């Protein structure tokens, strides 16, 4: 119930955002519209908590932007210079994330960071296979992900 309600609100906001018209009537219209769409598409979906996450969310976004920029520069340097300093490979990263949303978000964030690419998640959801450009030390690489992205993400989502 709560979940659906929240999605509904979220979609209403998206509607208002993309229409770019902020009258009250537009909120109502968007709400009705989202309600209809949710009705059409509803199938069971996991629950999530929606409070106490705002501060964490902000710091997470900042962290992500920092990582993004850093990694981008690293890759950029490698691209511009004639020789490659890469040590690429596919690493098996065990997961703490459990739900679909957690896993997906984590995987996507890893992919968005330059130098790493989430290739796939094992069918039992225990392992994420990541292709990475710079693997100087495998364990360290795994820990970086687990302590960095995964930990912060799970804090927000759980």
């Amino acid at each position: 119930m709560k979940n659906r309600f929240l999605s509904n609100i979220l979609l209403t906001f998206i509607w208002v955002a993309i229409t770019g018209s902020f009258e009250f009537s537009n909120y109502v219209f968007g709400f009705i519209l989202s309600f209809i769409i949710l009705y059409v598409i509803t199938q069971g979906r996991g629950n999530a908590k929606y409070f106490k996450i705002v501060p964490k969310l902000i710091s997470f976004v900042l962290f992500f932007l920092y990582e993004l920029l850093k990694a981008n520069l690293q890759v950029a340097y490698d691209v511009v210079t004639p020789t490659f300093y890469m040590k690429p490979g596919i690493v098996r990263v065990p997961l703490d994330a459990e739900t679909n949303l957690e896993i997906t978000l984590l995987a996507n964030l890893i992919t968005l960071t330059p130098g790493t690419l989430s290739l796939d998640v094992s069918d039992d959801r225990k392992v994420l296979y990541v292709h990475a450009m710079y693997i100087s030390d495998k364990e360290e690489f795994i820990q970086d992900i687990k302590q960095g992205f995964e930990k912060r993400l799970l804090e927000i989502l759980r």
Partner: protein
Amino acid sequence: MTDALIIILSSLGAIFILLAAVGFLRMPDTYLRISVTTKAVTLGVGLILVSAAIYFDDLSVTSRVLAIILFIILTAPVGAHLIGRASYFLGVKMWDKSVMDELEGKYKKFSHKLDSGDDLRDDEEKEEKEKD
């Protein structure tokens, strides 16, 4: 002031995109190319779109720009994941200086089920043998 901001942001964006393009061209294997591009471009697109938002300075434009960025952040990694995964199925070789491949042999040949590596039995082969 806004002009300067636009110029800086768009220049940064353009440079990131150019770098991504160069990287895409230069990288030695498919996975690296996927890896390099998804993000550099995401960043570049984001920056340029933001400069557009600043230029028009209009709420509806801004919200649209944010929507675009959101969509790209949402979809780009998924696409990268899909095509990377598909390449692996197809047996696209990794760069010969690659240091490891922990995914090797983990995909089931026909069902494309992916093993976590904890249980090394190959169900599929077993099934095959039982059938014969």
